[in-house]
């Protein structure tokens, strides 16, 4: 039986490892074609990534990626595709920054209020897609994509002018660099350098490990409990695996769709919080693309809380460590985009192959057992 467990773990790891190896080889080919030495490039990245300060950067990058990955995974668990995390987190961030700046409270309450507003806005905005699906049968993939566009090129572009620090400005204003009013010190989630420094030397170069890291950890634990230890999580998985059976079992699929969609948005609302804590406001250059990257991370991690963490760390490492390539000039840093894309695609294919292999294996095992019983 011990052997069996090992075998299962090996099978589970086979796909992502194969994907990373395949992506590394494929990227090396691209690098060679482009006239760079892949070994120097990877060596530079690993050397750079092994520095403590850079590792802090990696964790800072991985934190929102992870939250975004969990947000996407909640929907994926029941075959609900919330592509709208991108719009949800940005909208949540700007409203939370605005509300956070307009009040002054003790630190715990202030931070709590900002997080709460962000979660509410995220959940409300994804809820629109949920309501459209449940009541009007509008496919959530299309509606969330449209809602992304509406949020980003419409609502946020408008709000960022309306809530500009020092009064609203019109569309023709050229100096939009400032952003919303600054949030009071009490509303900013502090860094947790001291926590990390228990294990390491002092962090230098003014790098700060975001306190939202702890929020991400909490989100991961809650996600694990929700999926594996609650009725809702059971219904969610059941609907994802076999919606008809779940319906026969008394699960209201409409309620599940709405619930999963809103919950996904609630988590999505937290994605921008690290950036808000760092900037102290929402500005027009607010970090983008985390929603789509989160989908990639969720797919890589197979919607598993631990898997998503590994995926987020991997992508964060590639994003961050590639910065050194510009300095050393050993390759163009855009190679990591190719790597991420190939890893993602190779991983989803590899999972499928392993899954098929596993089903065949089980069928074989069952037939062996049955033959044994008959004999």
């Amino acid at each position, binding site marked *: 039986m011990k052997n069996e467990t090992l075998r299962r773990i090996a099978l589970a790891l086979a796909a992502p490892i194969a994907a990373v190896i395949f992506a590394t080889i494929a990227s090396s080919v*691209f690098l060679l074609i*482009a006239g760079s030495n892949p070994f120097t490039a990877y060596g530079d990245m690993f050397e750079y990534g092994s520095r403590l300060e850079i590792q802090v950067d990696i964790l800072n990058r991985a934190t929102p990626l992870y939250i975004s990955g969990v947000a996407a995974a909640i929907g994926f668990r029941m075959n609900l*595709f919330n*592509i709208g995390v991108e719009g949800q987190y940005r909208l949540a961030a700007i409203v939370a920054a605005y509300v956070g700046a307009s009040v002054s409270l003790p630190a715990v309450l202030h931070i709590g209020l900002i997080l709460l507003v962000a979660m509410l806005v995220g959940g409300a905005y994804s809820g629109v897609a949920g309501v*459209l699906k449940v009541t*009007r*049968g*509008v*496919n959530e*993939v*299309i*509606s969330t*994509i*449209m*809602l*992304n*566009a*509406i949020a980003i*090129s*419409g*609502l946020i*572009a*408008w709000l960022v002018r309306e809530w500009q620090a020092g009064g609203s400005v019109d*569309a023709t204003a050229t100096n939009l660099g400032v952003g919303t009013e600054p949030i009071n010190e009490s509303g900013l989630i502090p860094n947790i350098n001291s926590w990390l420094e228990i294990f390491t030397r002092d962090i230098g170069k003014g790098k700060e490990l975001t306190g939202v890291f702890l929020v991400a950890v909490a989100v991961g634990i809650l996600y694990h409990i929700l999926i594996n230890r609650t009725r809702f999580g059971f219904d969610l998985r059941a609907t994802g695996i076999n919606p008809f059976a779940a319906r026969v079992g008394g699960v209201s699929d409409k309620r599940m769709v709405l619930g999963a969609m809103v919950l996904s948005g609630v988590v999505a609302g937290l994605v921008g919080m690290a950036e808000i804590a760092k900037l102290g406001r929402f500005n027009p250059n607010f970090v983008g693309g985390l929603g*789509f*990257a989160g*989908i*990639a991370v969720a*797919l890589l991690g197979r919607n598993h809380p631990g898997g998503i963490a590994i995926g987020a760390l991997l992508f964060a490492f590639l994003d961050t460590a590639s910065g050194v390539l510009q300095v050393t000039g050993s390759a*163009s*840093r*855009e*190679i990591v*985009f*190719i790597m*991420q*894309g*190939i890893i*993602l*695609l190779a991983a*989803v*294919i590899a999972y*499928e*192959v392993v899954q*098929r292999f596993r089903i065949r294996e089980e069928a074989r095992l069952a037939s062996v057992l049955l033959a044994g019983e008959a004999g």
Partner: protein
Amino acid sequence: MILAQIRQLPAWARWASFATLGVLVLTLVQELGQNDTSHLTAMTTSQTALKWSIPILLAGLGGLFAERAGIINIGLEGMMVLGTWFGAWGAFNFGPYTGILIGIIGGAIGGLIHAIATVGFGVDHIISGVAINILGPFAARFLSSEIFTGYQGGSVTQSPRVENVDKFTMPFLAGGYDTPNFLKWLGDKDLPLISDIGNILRGVLTQTSWATIVALLLVPFSAWLLWRTRFGLRIRISGEDPWAGESQGVNIYRYKFVAVMISGGLAGFGGAFITIEMSSIYQEGGTTGRGFIGLAALIFGNWRPGGILAAALLFGYPYALQFGDFDGFASHALLLVNAIALFGVTIWAIRKSKHADAAIAFVLGALSAIWYFVADTVPDWWVKILPYVIVIVVLIFFAQRLRMPAANGQIYRRGQT
């Protein structure tokens, strides 16, 4: 009863009637408004609207081929991005015509990847599509950093300028080749409706790019290919009931592969069109989600070429209205057009005794009308999001009335049901 009679007409006359009805609404709105809203039916508006519809149309047709073969292609956007990049690269090095061809090949490569994942390995169609949407822009970014940065005027996010395809102006009707310009004469008459139709047609027939003409010809061609040939029948059986097709000896895998590659090629054409015909330059993020709008056009068009064209024109129109509408009056008048359309939907829903639909349409229509009467202009962000709002509103009313290919999105494995 007029509607019932329209329904009995042949297809071309039916479409023409609906189009005339649409222009009639636009004319009415112009007469009603106090401000000058002639921009609604101006020649330049229809010219721009047609141009903006083409990438949506091509993406929609791309979706048509894939989904008729049973493969959901949400990766159209990513394939379109590949089309914009390869189109720019090709156009810069070999001229615009070859550029479009290379853009098509670029998109088809994306289609090939999607086909390998979904058909070859049986990966979930949405997951593979999402992966391609992430891979496409990443690949374009990398390629730009390797290639465009070496060109004068190029950078990591954009290409040097590229040339356009030649243009065509219809003789006699629109005055091409130094012939009389009948539609201009008609438009200058300033008659209600007739002059509007004249202006709109003149815009469509003046300085039309050959790429546009080819794209439009792809509409009847796709209909012929899918519904009148053996090849098309086999693509459609792959999407309706692949197991039935398999029992007839059709190699379903092959048809799905070919269909998804055609799909990617069409999306690539759409991307190359954006680069070569619209922006004259490759820009990162230049597709602005038009692959997804194409997907919405496919759904609204009920998985049929004619419907996709109509949807593409509908979605392209508000984009076009933004240009040259400096005072914002025309965009503002569009609120009244929306209201009239929504009241039309209300009447339709009442006749079909769909009371919920009627109520929703009436409320939305009333809101639109109230906004029209209380404000003189609309904010610029409203104009920007209008195409997306229209997509959602249209789907609210029609999502449940549509029929997609029966086995669309299902994972097919040979010999397994």
